[in-house]
């Protein structure tokens, strides 16, 4: 899980008793109404009161930058989802659409995270497989079950196409994605 995340920051390394102070500081950062330095000074006072070391300006700045970029990505992925999936209103959703909606969100997030480089859709794959497994586990006739599986693959495949078109993925990546996510074979 720590893969690619690199060394833990001094904030991550603070002991459990400092957690509530950190959560407070993060909330302040997310609110964006006070300066970073004000928040850091107040946080360090709280840490000092507990006999803990303070956070350096540079470490706090790195954290703040990460928080801000996560917030930006989140906003971006929400906007993309809204544009891609207007049919996913809370009222009109069955189990299949529910999963496809989340699949689209996870795919969008994973694409945004990859910065256009080759990405591996781990989260999307997990969702897709889990859902296919639930269909397989249901007490349905063989015929109905395979119909449900096909319906999901078709709908999810369409969703992948939409996301790919919006984010400018190559046709090849798109086909690879479908093959990996849904086991849909490339047409010869």
């Amino acid at each position, binding site marked *: 899980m720590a893969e690619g995340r690199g060394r833990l920051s001094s904030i991550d390394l603070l002991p459990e008793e400092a957690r*509530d102070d*950190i959560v407070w500081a993060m909330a302040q950062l997310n609110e964006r109404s006070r300066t970073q330095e004000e928040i850091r000074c107040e946080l360090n006072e709280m840490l000092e009161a507990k006999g803990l070391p303070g956070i350096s300006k540079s470490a706090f700045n790195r954290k703040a930058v990460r928080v801000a970029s996560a917030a930006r990505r989140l906003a971006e992925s929400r906007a993309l989802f809204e544009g891609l999936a207007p049919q996913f209103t809370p009222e009109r959703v069955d189990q299949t659409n529910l999963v496809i909606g989340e699949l689209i969100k996870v795919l969008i997030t994973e694409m945004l995270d990859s910065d256009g480089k080759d990405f591996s859709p781990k989260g999307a794959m997990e969702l897709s497989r*889990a859902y296919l497994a639930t269909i397989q586990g249901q007490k349905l006739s063989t015929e109905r079950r395979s119909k449900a599986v096909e319906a999901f693959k078709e709908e999810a495949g369409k969703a992948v196409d939409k996301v790919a078109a919006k984010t400018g993925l190559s046709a090849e990546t798109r086909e690879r994605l479908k093959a990996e996510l849904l086991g849909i074979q490339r047409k010869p």
Partner: protein
Amino acid sequence: MSADQIIREHARLIILRDLAEQPDGRWNSEALREDLEERWAITKTREWVHDELRWLAEMGAATVNEIGSVLIAKLTQKGLDHVERRRVITGVKRPSPAE
């Protein structure tokens, strides 16, 4: 209140707010876990997030749908009422007043 309890109550509010901000009022547990870690420095396991989601479901603030190893949570009217300060759910941090 213990630090653990403070963080749980805070995380519950973050989760409800995250759900409220989603266009369809839903979000999956892995995305929620990542958000808690990245934006709020609440680094917990997915199981921990699942426990909180089930707690919220028990309180009627959300509903959960289990898809394999992931939970898909959906905000209820009661959960939204808490986020928008129309009612208070004990055990969930109160949102700060709107600016």
